């Protein structure tokens, strides 16, 4: 068997590193951090536990930052960010969160991110951003370079972030912070969780109901262990995080979306609200508007290989008669689906659900079909 490659780069640690090691996690390098890929239970068990109970994920490696308007005006800070992303920030309600993308001038995706209008009193003109770990330095530099006078970016490297996901998540968190019970999907609140000051949003990356919980780094271990004290909650590593998000049909930056893909090709039109589609005024608007009108030449689709063999990222996609039409961008085994699942880009004429494809795996064509996503139904709290 081939050994995984090792890197000698010094790795950063999250505030929960010692907790992971104590739990017997297998730590691997990820985006410059030492992160738990799995705990002793293993990826399959962790995946299924999250779908059936509640999984707790350390995502403190992700970048958390505030964008702040000096004049304390939401409009000022919203306009500043709208110059960089295609989401409607202006009409965000206090505490509302949206998924969006930082776009390049050509409409390619520099990163994807979550944007929340901070609702706490005294924080008018504040937006809370969460960006990918691997992209945070580049994102912050990009945002900084494009900010108008009077708007500043404050990176919050002293914050931890964890995600509590799964059908039991709501009951578990309500036991510690009752006001989270009624929080709707993509809304957030400042709450005390067992006496710890947190910012909680009802969102996640698994397709399940759940929360992302931000707190001060020094409180992270206490909160982590408090949540794990509930028998419904188990720690979940990056391995299951990936299989959960793949079954949920969610994009992973650097794989399913990158600077070569547009939000329309990626099927993310739902994240561009009507006003922005019409008005434009974001980088790459011309391409995005053209692709909305005329259709993109290639699109991201779900794919179900017909046998048991997974097709991994990079597998070439062909028609059944061997004409190359695309490439797999994420692929693996879906424990909930109990079979291989993948996503990738294909030319638009091959993108209808049910279309027969071949995936080239180790030189051999593997029969597959375009499939609707998500592979496992979303169970968000609407």
């Amino acid at each position, binding site marked *: *068997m081939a050994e995984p490659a090792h890197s000698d780069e010094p790795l950063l640690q999250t505030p929960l590193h010692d907790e992971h090691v104590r739990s017997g996690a297998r730590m691997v390098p990820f985006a410059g951090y030492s992160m738990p890929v799995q705990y002793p239970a*293993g990826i399959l068990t962790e995946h299924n536990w999250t779908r059936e109970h509640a999984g707790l994920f350390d995502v403190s490696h992700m970048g958390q930052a505030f964008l702040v308007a000096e004049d304390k005006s939401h409009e000022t800070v919203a306009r500043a960010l709208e110059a960089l992303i295609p989401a409607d920030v202006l009409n965000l309600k206090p505490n509302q969160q949206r998924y969006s993308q930082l776009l390049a001038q050509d409409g390619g995706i520099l990163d994807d991110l979550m944007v929340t209008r901070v609702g706490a009193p005294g924080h008018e003109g504040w937006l809370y951003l969460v960006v990918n770990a691997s992209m945070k330095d580049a994102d912050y530099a990009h945002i900084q370079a494009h900010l108008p006078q009077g708007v500043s970016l404050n990176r919050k490297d002293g914050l931890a972030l964890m995600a509590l996901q799964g059908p039991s998540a709501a009951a578990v968190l309500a036991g510690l912070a009752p006001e989270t019970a009624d929080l709707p999907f993509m809304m957030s609140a400042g709450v005390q969780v067992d006496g710890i000051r947190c910012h909680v949003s009802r969102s996640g990356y698994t397709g399940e109901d759940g929360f992302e919980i931000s707190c001060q780094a020094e409180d992270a271990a206490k909160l982590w262990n408090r949540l794990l004290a509930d028998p419904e909650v188990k720690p979940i590593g990056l391995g299951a995080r990936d299989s959960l998000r793949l079954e949920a049909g969610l994009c992973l930056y650097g794989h399913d979306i990158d600077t070569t893909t547009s939000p329309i090709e990626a099927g993310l039109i739902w994240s561009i609200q009507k006003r922005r589609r019409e008005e434009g005024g974001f980088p790459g608007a011309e391409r995005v508007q053209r692709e909305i009108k005329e259709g993109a030449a290639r699109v991201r689709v779900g794919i179900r290989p017909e046998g048991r063999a997974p097709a991994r990222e990079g597998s070439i996609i062909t028609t059944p008669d061997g004409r190359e039409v695309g490439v797999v961008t994420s692929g693996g*085994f879906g424990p909930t689906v109990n079979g291989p699942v993948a996503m990738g880009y294909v030319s638009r004429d091959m993108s209808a659900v049910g279309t027969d494809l071949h995936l080239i795996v180790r030189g051999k064509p593997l029969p597959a079909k375009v499939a609707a996503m998500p592979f496992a139904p979303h169970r968000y709290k609407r």
Partner: protein
Amino acid sequence: MTTRYTKDHEYIRIEGDTGIVGISEYAQGQLGDVVFVELPSVGKSLSKGDEAAVVESVKAASEVYAPVSGEVVEVNSDLEASPGAVNEDPSGRGWFMKIRVKDEGELGDLMTEDQYQEFLKSIG
């Protein structure tokens, strides 16, 4: 019954002129949950070090190399339906293939059980 190991964590257990090939307990633990195994065709002739099988975990695909040269005389087709046997019982139900050993001399290049345990300590 003699079992020998490679540095890539395959084992070969010699029974007469054939050897049963699989991956070690350590290897299954490193891989994590096995979800698919691609086995060679019976009759395939392998040279030592050739890619003989592919084992897929939830995370990734890994190659399994032939510990010695020889012909594949049988494969464990039960792994199609229950690939998890590789995790549960790697030296028993989780075997991959039987090879008719071409050159017994090649076994001398492999590690004994004791040597393999020492090797694991050195990389651990």
